[in-house]
């Protein structure tokens, strides 16, 4: 039997402490979301822990508030515009970055990533001011275009990572069999890229729906998107209605997570 001496004890305590910290961190990530979902079912008109009853009224109310429903539609539209733009501009850019042998190919792949590293509020303010210089006011279009520029990096990076892993022999074989480049792209490359494009689309869509830093400076005053409405109601109300809206968002995030794990797999997200 193994004897536990002093050094071994310190080793166990040390590792135990680190694992305890890890568990604490994971609990810290999980619990707030659980608590919000729990509170959204409370019957009282104000947030007070612990909940005393169970009702789905707050969820009914969320979808009966025209302001919130309009904001949701606006944000879904923005999410779709952003995703469409990011696919249309980002996928070809990823192709050029990964395959190009022109001078500055590396510089290009860095350049495309820069807007995402700049603080969102700086980009938002910059776009708002430039628009004002040209007489273009904030609108759903200004918001969508600036958000696309902000998150395009995610699409380019995801698709590039996939392109670099593709077996070049597949495309060569297709060419040797007499397929045109367009046929090769359509029949071989595109289907292989599809999971990456879908994963990128999940992230760009989420950013289009959730982003506040760029949105707050560029959104239209008539088309108020969800983050703006949410910020306003979180600041001004203490009812479980906010918890219900939040729970809906948390559930959407879980759905998005499912979508990702089914397309590229969770462990690939990190690339």
């Amino acid at each position: 039997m193994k004897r536990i001496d002093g050094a071994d004890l310190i080793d166990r305590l040390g590792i135990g402490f680190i694992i305890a910290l890890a568990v604490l961190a994971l609990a810290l990530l999980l619990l707030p979301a659980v608590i919000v979902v729990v509170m959204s079912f409370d019957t009282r008109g104000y947030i007070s822990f612990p909940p005393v009853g169970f009702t789905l009224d707050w969820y009914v109310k969320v979808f009966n508030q025209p302001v919130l429903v309009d904001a949701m539609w606006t944000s879904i539209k923005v999410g779709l515009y952003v995703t469409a733009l990011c696919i249309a501009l980002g996928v070809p850019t990823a192709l050029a970055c990964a395959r190009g042998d022109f001078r500055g190919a590396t510089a290009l792949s860095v350049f495309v990533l820069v807007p995402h590293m700049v603080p969102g509020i700086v980009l938002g303010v910059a776009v708002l001011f430039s628009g004002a210089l040209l007489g273009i006011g904030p609108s759903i279009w200004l918001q969508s275009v600036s958000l696309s520029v902000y998150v395009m990096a995610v699409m380019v990076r995801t698709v590039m990572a996939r392109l670099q892993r593709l077996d070049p022999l597949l495309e060569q074989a297709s060419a040797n069999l007499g397929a045109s480049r367009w046929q090769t792209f359509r029949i071989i490359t595109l289907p292989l890229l599809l999971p990456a494009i879908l994963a990128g689309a999940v992230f760009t869509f989420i950013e289009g729906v959730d982003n506040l830093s760029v949105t707050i400076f560029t959104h239209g005053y008539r088309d108020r998107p969800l983050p703006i409405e949410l910020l306003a109601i979180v600041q001004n109300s203490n009812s479980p209605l906010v918890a219900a809206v939040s729970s809906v968002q948390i559930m959407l995030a879980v759905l998005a997570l499912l979508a990702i794990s089914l397309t590229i797999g969770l462990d690939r997200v990190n690339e």
Partner: protein
Amino acid sequence: MTRRPLLLRLVDELLSGRGIWPAVPAIVVLVVVAVIPFGVLLSLGFSDIVVSRGVIVSQELSLRHLTTALADPLYHTTFRRSLTLALTTTFFCSLLGFPVAYLFLIGGPWVRRIILVLTIAPILTSGIVRTYAWIVILGGRGVVNATLMEFGLISQPLRIINTHWAVLIGMVQIHLPIMILPLIAVMSRHDSRLEEASANLGASRLATLRTIILPLSVPGLGTGAALVFTLSYTTFVVPQLLGGGNYLNAATMVYEQVVYSLEWSKGAVTAMILMATCLAVLLVFAWLTHIGTRWTRVAQR
């Protein structure tokens, strides 16, 4: 040989994949919507402007706003507060993030899956929602106060929300996933034989952690720290909602100047200083990571 239509040949040329052509539309959009606006922002920071109905009607070169801001004590306290907050957040995120990444490294497939779900799900959730959760937890009738009163530890609810502490707690929790993901990415690239070799040579797990795993995760720590710092230095959701509207950090300052008081020259100057200071800290981080990586190579020998 049949002549293929012009359009198809054009598409072929575009798809040949060696030219810059496929990227041109994106480059044009990035220049128009990012590069030029940054230039405009810089130029506004260095000028006097007149705004009328959301349109800039005149612009004159002037250093007035920049010099006023640099001499303003409000700017000094605000930027010092934001820097301290962001650096503290970065520190606590690495303190909590590293153990999670270590657990990922030594854990089985289910532990790994749980860690991935718990770190990726928050990234897909709105920052406002995640901050709101802390209002529910730390508020007057929130989870913490209710629990403490239940056990008779306090008779009056503690004032936690709208304090510096609430902001810090919220900041750390919200930016934690951004620290964990790069750490996990770097750690899963390690050659696991290094750790096995270390164990076979009789090193304890702590010694292996200190001499092998920690040095090898320096690049991940660097990336994570840079991301967490940038985001926490420039967010206004958390300070706005958990600081009770009177916790002014640099980002809330930009927001108030641009959206509420419509002092655009001031806003441009603040945004410029924000960007410049952020870049300066990131350069220091990059330098530290570089030193740390050199240390890694020594450790690998």
